[in-house]
């Protein structure tokens, strides 16, 4: 009779171990390889839609230092570490950036050199984007992943 309980305990431990292994595999894939991400907001129009797109983002390039100008990246916001934002890398460290400070209000432009270890990010929709023009260049370490292609909506399928 006691043997029955040990058999049940052993089977539940086995099942729990399978679930634990699966969750660990999910964590490693979502952190180190690639995962789908829902992105929304007006700052990357017309590249990304306002109401939300599901994109596949990969987490290998930024660890190898292979992120460069023109890449759309996922970054942790320097103003709130719990928020992830999507912007495009415009310049890497050492490069000179000329940008319009507030294009909807004036024609004023500024020129800045990106310091070592930092990148300059801007949204494609410069009229409605809170980016490096507001909070300055961000350290490369805040980049979490690179956007690879869009999977939803279906008619927008393909690499960005």
């Amino acid at each position, binding site marked *: 009779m006691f043997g029955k309980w040990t058999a049940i305990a052993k089977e539940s431990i086995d099942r729990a171990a399978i679930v634990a292994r699966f*969750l660990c595999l999910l964590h490693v894939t979502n952190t180190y390889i690639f995962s789908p991400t829902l992105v929304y907001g007006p700052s990357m129009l017309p590249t990304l839609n306002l109401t939300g797109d599901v994109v596949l983002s990969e987490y290998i390039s930024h660890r190898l230092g292979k992120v460069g100008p023109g890449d759309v990246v996922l970054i942790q916001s320097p103003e709130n570490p719990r928020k992830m934002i999507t912007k495009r890398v415009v310049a890497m460290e050492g490069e000179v950036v000329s940008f319009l400070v507030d294009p909807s209000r004036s024609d004023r432009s500024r020129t800045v050199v990106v310091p070592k270890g930092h990148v300059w990010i801007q949204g494609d929709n410069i009229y409605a984007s809170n980016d490096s023009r507001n909070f300055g260049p961000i350290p490369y*370490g805040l980049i979490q992943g690179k956007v690879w292609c869009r999977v939803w909506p279906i008619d927008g399928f393909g690499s960005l």
Partner: protein
Amino acid sequence: MRSTSFLWNVCKSSFTFGLIGLTVSDRVASVVRVRGLSMSPTFNPPNNTSLGLFTDDHVLVEKRCLTDYKFSHGDVVVFCSPRNYKEKQIKRITGMPGDWISVPFSYDAVRIPEGHCWVEGDNPTDSLDSRSFGPIPLGLIRGRVTHVLWPPQRVGKIDKKLPRSGLSF
């Protein structure tokens, strides 16, 4: 036949242990070796022997704090250096968002912006910290140091020392 299935089992087990170990080290806690003297005497206190793998301090870094980023004054944290994302540094948080920090040897005061913090080493003479590179975004933090695990005579919890200098209000 038996040797290939044995090899396959070894591969499967090591892959599983690797996955579980990586997940635990990312989400729960990991052990990190402290190099350098910027946090003396909290870590690597000065002594006559040279620093090496067996004399450097090893500390426990907990990762549960990365779910909500609730840090406070006196926490010792591991973060990616803003000058070089590949390097990780260990310093103590001495300023939180909204604090004013007085810059040494000048009359300036710097206000720490939202989402950033001011980090300083416990050994100010030998520490490259926020006094050189300014406040760092909280998103660069990769964990909080809670205990010293090695050497055995100094195993114990880390104290939360409050900042000695600068203004915090």
